């Protein structure tokens, strides 16, 4: 029987480090936001994930530099 993957497992398989970090952050923040009110949920996820983007881009650049 094939392994049953969790959403986290699937996200961990994303090869681009920047996309992976953004996806991981988006999911983590979404889990946190599940109990929030309908109005603020998406805004919260977008804001929190937006904060991580510079770090994600930096990570991608570092990885690319290391590979080359």
């Amino acid at each position: 029987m094939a392994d049953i993957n969790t959403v986290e497992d699937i996200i961990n398989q994303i090869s681009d480090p920047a996309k992976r970090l953004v996806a991981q952050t988006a999911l983590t923040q979404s889990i946190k936001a599940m109990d929030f009110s309908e109005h603020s949920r998406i805004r919260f996820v977008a804001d929190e994930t937006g904060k991580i983007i510079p770090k994600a881009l930096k990570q991608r650049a570092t990885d690319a530099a290391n590979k080359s």
Partner: protein
Amino acid sequence: MQLTNLELKDFRQFKGQQKLIIADEQKKNVTVVYGKNGRGKTGIFRALMFCLYGDRSLSQDELTGQDKKNGLNLINERTLNDNVGHEVTASVLVHFSHQGKRCSISRELTGLMKNDGTIVQNPSDQDQVALQVTDIDGNTSPKETDPDKVKAFIQEILSSRLRDYFLFDGERIERLTRGTRERRDEVRKGIRALLNLDAMELAIKGLKKLASGYDKEISEKSTGRLQRVTEQIAQYNEEIESFEDALEKDNAELKRLKHRIIELSKEIEGHEATAEKERLRKDLISQVNDKQDALTVLKSDMAEKVNQSSHLLAADLLEQLLEELNLRRDKGQLPPEIRKEFVEKLLANEMCICGTPLDDTHSRERDSLQKFLAEHYAPGLGQETLTLYSTLNKLSGPSGTCRRF
């Protein structure tokens, strides 16, 4: 999480201090709580949910609004009644192990019964909660009494969104196994929660919003051709989004209609099944009528047979009698099968049935007939004997009879 025991004090039906030890032996590791209604089975479950999550009601209580916020009265009413006007504390202590750590969580609430009988409980955010953890090496951490930290600890073990699918009582099982739309929705919700699909969808929506925010920023900062292109992209994205929304709605409607079709098909099947049963019923009724007719025929046949066969009881005797009568007949001692009165009438009328006169001109025929009368109608062998003989002969006939036996 593996429960070890529960200690309850003045909680719901459990007056005073009560302890429930959960079986944790290798081979005997199932604990069954059984009892009649109202004896506290759900009370134990409430105690667990209260202690771990601070719940004052269960989903099956179906409370809404302020009632849900207030929850049920969890303090033992007899204890409250014994202490009218005084504060009473109810508490639950749960011991469990998790990933090698031994943990205990206690939660207590206070309340009192007023003189008019009304019960007042402290608000749930004032519950006193304490967590103590002993790690695998036996080191015990200080008691944690911050409700948020205790909540985070429990959430990490079993999220409150998932608890309904791991912690539930018999009534919930009953509800889950009902073949209704409500049950299907509940199972669907459970699967979504287990797979984190809701969070995933939220993450996707959040990312889309983030992307559209960046797009907007780019279009604001860009000029010339780039601006036009970004504006076009934003416009297309909006269109795609509205198409996707419409598609989602159509899919939902399609799903609803498919569901309706299945429901109606089932209904029709039900009617077909009923019609088939009705046809079968009519068939069976007609079969019953046929059988009853056959039974009537058989009964009358049986009655006839019994009638005919009653003489079998005296078969041997009747056989002997018939033989005797045959013998006598051969000897000419039995009257012929012509009535005596008929022969006498012929003689008196002096005319035979063949037209021959029986007067003096035909004295030979007349004498012969007179002789026949004298010989065959001797006293003692009367008409009765003749009738008996005839009957016995009929019985000896081919339809069934003494001779066969």
